């Protein structure tokens, strides 16, 4: 262990008044200690700002909710006599990757919850177990080929095993263009519940 009197070449040979020397040096030592501590803490705090922002970026980045897809001019659906099957392409961005999926929907007449001026857009996904439900033009009903659920033209439940009607999707019109936002709902429930 070095002794304090080795302080470089200043005061090379003055062993007198050792106690005072120590006090002076200790004062200087603790001054340096504070300097180092405060300096390091400031430096560390400054450097941690970009690190924290970087790490938290995806936590606070605004989530891109599924965008609205166009279904064409709303007037073309004004006088439809049966549900019209349409496919929409949905682009989902997940961090640095993007995926596109094609989803079928039905534009139909009805006044269930989620309708707009007598028009509904239904998800083609069967609320029972998720099959793609086709429209049966002869029976004038939606008939799921998987387990036999039947739905009225407006999507309401006619016959199980499904426990609820076909799910309506959020819609809006923008300058007469009908827009839909595709969503997924939990299967097997009697009421519609959005899948996170």
């Amino acid at each position: 262990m070095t002794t304090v009197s080795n302080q470089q070449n200043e005061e090379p040979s003055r062993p007198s008044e050792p106690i005072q020397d120590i006090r002076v040096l200790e004062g200087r030592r603790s001054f340096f200690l504070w300097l180092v501590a405060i300096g390091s803490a400031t430096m560390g705090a400054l450097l941690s700002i970009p690190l924290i922002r970087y790490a938290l970026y995806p936590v606070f980045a605004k989530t891109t909710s599924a965008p609205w897809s166009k279904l064409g001019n709303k007037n073309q659906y004004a006088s439809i006599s049966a549900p019209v099957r349409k496919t929409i392409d949905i682009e989902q961005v997940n961090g640095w990757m993007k995926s596109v999926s094609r989803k079928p929907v039905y534009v139909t007449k009805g006044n269930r919850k989620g309708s707009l001026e007598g028009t509904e857009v239904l998800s083609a996904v069967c609320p029972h177990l998720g099959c793609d439900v086709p429209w049966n033009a002869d029976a004038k009903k939606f008939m799921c080929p998987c387990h036999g659920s039947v739905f009225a033209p407006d999507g309401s439940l006619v016959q199980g095993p499904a426990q609820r009607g076909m799910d309506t999707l959020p819609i809006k019109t923008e300058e007469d263009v009908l827009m839909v936002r595709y969503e997924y709902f939990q299967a097997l429930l009697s009421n519609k519940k959005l899948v996170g």
Partner: protein
Amino acid sequence: MSKQTPTEHTPQNPHHAQPSGLFHWFEQRTGLNRLLHHTLDEPIPGGARFAFIFGSGLLFIFLSQVITGIFLALYYVPSVDHAHVTVAYITKVVAAGSFLRSLHVYGASAMVIIVLLHLSQTFLYGSYKGKRELLWLSGTVLFTLVMGMAFTGYLLPWDQKSYFATAVGTNVASEVPLIGGFAKRMLRGGNQLGTLTLSRFYAMHVLYIPLLIFLFMAIHIYLFRKAGAAGPISESPIHPAQKTESFYPRQLVMDLGFASLLIVALGFAAFIAPAALGPLANPADTHYLPRPDWYFRPLFEWLKIWHGQAEFLRILVIPTIIVFLFVALPFLDRSPERRPWRRPLAVGIYSVVFIALISLGAYSYYQDAHDKDIAAQLALQRKAQQQYMKTPFQPQLVGAPLPGAAQAKKAPASPLAIAGRKIFESHGCFACHGEGAVGTAIAPRIIGIGNKFSEEQMENLFQHPTAKMSAGGMPHFQFTPNDVKALRAYLDSLQ
């Protein structure tokens, strides 16, 4: 709490004075304070000097590289199909991503510069003398590891620049006599520079080499403390006689001052001129001129410069001599003389090598600037890089193409096929077999099923489904032979 701590107590020193309470309890169990004092009281013969700041400067830069590197790993994916897009995401999208990546990129250059300064200071001060052979050897290992970090890290962004520079770099390995071909394949994970190479370089860069650096850094520091600081050139390397000053406070403040300066300089550079990322590597680009980063330029030039006769001198004899002199230095130069002007041979060789390296590097840049074709191509490459930096981030499209996208758009050829499509859609076949019959999780792809079954077989299948079909939930359909014909035509038309 009345027990004495194992700490040495000297009444004159308040730092060592009897501590009390929680601090005392903690100290008794960890001895951290004692360790701290041992660290800070390292005696430096001849006192603190600015010449001694490089070692701890390296430690700080390394720490900065570790921290920024760990954070880069939050987003980076080491595979050929994702590496570039993730680095682009870090650079163009993530908050402070460009800044942190730039700190890491410039930190690598700073590390190489300071390692050279540290090495030069140790050499010129003769600080490797006096039972410090292992200390020097561990230093040469660390030097190699730092260069290895620079080499492996360069490939990771997988842009044009890094791809082609690494292609050349790994080719260099194949010039080594006898084991060259093996070394190259070992580095690349095969003959090609591809995704296996990237995985290898990533593992080297974040696991193997850092672990070795930690290990050898510990050895290096331990051996340094064991041998003691060598002090100034006027000091005897074996029996230090000059007055010592403890590391704390003056040397520590100098070291920390230097570290702060480095970090501020790096931060400034990262802020003013963020590190660029070029376009995605295109191995088919035959025009691209590979250029390594500045620290490998002398080696790059050395391998280019002298072809033809006496090749063995260039690739074997001279490099071997230099490496041997570098590694074996403390064994070869055993006199206790430390003053550079009294060591003409050692300092002479050092100067020649150093000047040769600088000249080779400078000549490489000079050539690039003065050959019109090369200069034009390099300018083109720089421009492509700037262009790429300006374009906004494009997320990478992943996953299979749209289910049935191609098929759905293709209009059925014959009227029979059109009728078949009607049947397919009205009976809800797509519910299980998917749009365009491409298949789903619950039912197989049935495009072109006519190649597999005859009309009779198909009719039979509809009436007498197999056990597998029934179990899968295939409904019972009453199709006429004409319906089956139409369905076959439609499914065949999708091929």
